[in-house]
């Protein structure tokens, strides 16, 4: 099957020391990602959890070097199938985008061209990577559409984006991203604007894709509850840093980093489940996320952390292993 690596344990994607910053109008650099490390095995689903300002969308864009003009990758390596994407030539990069790595950006309502039929847009992606004659192109497009629209694929193919519902558009985006059989899919908030029922359908679709074609997925969201039955590992992002990464079940049930623990306590489902007094005060994380342009020293979560120590003010914690493929960046865990 295209893209299915037989080597099992060799990482499909290995990100090391990724630093990304944006320059504002004055030319000042504001860091967005600082020292991000993680790897991803073939067929693995990694959930990336972060709130606004955590750098999650920057991560999605940076992996394929799709940052806006004021964004800059300052250092680091992104090894994909053995090749450093940050060194790739423009031609190589174009082949990888859509060909080996599929990408779904954040806004389904505006990620499709408004005046081109949806089927054509999918064919365009196929044509960009494979040289097929017209008939094969059209057949393949219909096949692909049929996998996500079992009932009315033909009608959807000649529709325009504004004629489709949010869920339908999201499916089209997914088809576009996987059309050429990539080995990795990066999905940035794929269910954000969808109804709960549609959300579940899309998540199920991801699961099916992984099962059927061994597709590795990086699923970025601000709602950790979505990742429960789906992601193999969870990465928690705060202020552009990886604060915790580990097996999903473990991180959700027993989060080690104070931010992760505090965030899970804010989830309404947690509260409802715990059957505390209804309308009681929720335990919140005091304060606001940090303004990274201030370049404050030390741990970025320290001002809001219930377990802060002296060392947290001046030094940044390094990642420490606390279990099998489970790391935390916090001074509570001595290295």
């Amino acid at each position, binding site marked *: 099957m295209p893209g299915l690596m037989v080597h099992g344990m060799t990482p499909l994607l290995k990100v090391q020391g990724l630093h990304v910053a944006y320059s504002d109008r004055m030319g000042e650099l504001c860091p967005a990602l600082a020292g991000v490390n993680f790897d991803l095995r073939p067929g693995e689903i990694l959930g990336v959890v972060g709130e606004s300002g955590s750098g999650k969308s920057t991560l999605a864009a940076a992996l394929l070097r799709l940052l806006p003009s004021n964004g800059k990758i300052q250092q680091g390596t992104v090894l994909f199938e053995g090749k450093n994407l940050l060194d790739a030539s423009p031609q190589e990069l174009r082949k990888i985008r859509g060909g080996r790595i599929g990408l779904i950006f954040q806004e389904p309502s505006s990620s499709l061209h408004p005046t081109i039929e949806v089927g054509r847009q999918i064919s365009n992606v196929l044509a960009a990577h494979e040289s097929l004659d017209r008939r094969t192109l059209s057949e393949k497009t219909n096949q692909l559409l049929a996998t996500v629209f079992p009932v009315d694929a033909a009608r959807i193919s000649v529709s325009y984006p504004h004629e489709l519902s949010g869920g339908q558009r999201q499916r089209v985006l997914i088809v576009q991203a996987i059309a050429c059989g990539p080995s990795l899919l990066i999905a940035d908030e794929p269910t954000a604007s969808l109804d709960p029922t549609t959300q579940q359908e899309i998540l199920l679709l991801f699961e099916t894709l992984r099962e059927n074609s061994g597709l590795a997925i990086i699923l970025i969201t601000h709602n950790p509850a979505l990742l429960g039955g789906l992601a193999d590992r969870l990465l928690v992002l705060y202020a552009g840093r990886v604060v915790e990464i580990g097996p999903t079940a473990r991180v959700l049930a027993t989060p080690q980093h104070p931010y992760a623990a505090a965030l899970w306590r804010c989830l309404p489902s947690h509260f409802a489940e715990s059957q505390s007094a209804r309308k009681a005060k929720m335990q919140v994380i005091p304060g606001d996320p940090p303004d990274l342009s201030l370049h404050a020293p030390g741990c970025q979560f320290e001002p809001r952390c219930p*377990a802060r120590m002296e060392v947290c003010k001046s030094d940044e914690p390094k990642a420490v292993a606390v279990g099998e493929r489970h790391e935390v960046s916090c001074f509570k865990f001595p290295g």
Partner: protein
Amino acid sequence: MQPLLRVENLVKHYAAVRPASPKDKFAALDGVSLSIPARTTLALVGESGSGKSTLALCIACLEHPTSGSIWFEGIDVADLHENQRRLLRPQMQLVFQDPASSLNPRWTALEIVSEPFFVQGRFSKQERGDRACTWLDHVGISRKMANRRAAELSGGQKQRLAIARALALEPKLIVLDEALSALDYSVQAQICNLLLELQSSLGLTYLFITHDFSMAAHVADEIAVMDHGRIVETGPSEKILRSPAHDATRSLLAATPRVPEAQPTLVNS
């Protein structure tokens, strides 16, 4: 005691956008009845297209229902003259999901909250400023933030601002239409606490519209489930959560994502 708000058999038809047959009308609300006692919270849960927002607009007197009645403090709203209805509107305020489009990005926070006083025409400039500052304090926006333009505020701050503006008119009822849905969870928790606190200190009544069942269960005394323009089930939050009766309720509950059971704890090293 009469409820603060009572809605009976509300129907709202819209002309279909792309009519299959030109006479086609789309029934956004198909006979909705509910009542909200004062100082309580009713959560309205449903998928998009179920009619929740239409109901919110009708209750806030921003849309005219096709038929049915709305009683606010025992007064039939439909019976009223436009002038009288205008006097009634400040008592029911609406907070929307997207603060970016309901707040003028070029105005400062202070200006936005002062605007209702300006419109009422009763207060001097000094008084307007003072009152606005009081409300900003209530929602947790500092003096420094008050002079920032709305465009420069974060999502959570914008939503606080929208609430402050709603409060400035001293309403009895606040309709929150997916007001928390676009926010991060840590911010949602903060605003949720704020809303609960305001309810107890100011005696507010809330109609809380959401598609997140967990949030509804946490903040509301009663939950009403909407489907295709009708209310299919109502009842106290615990009952709905634990023993949902209607199919729509059950499928919504099943679709609501939950973090697995074990309690998150902090590990002390």
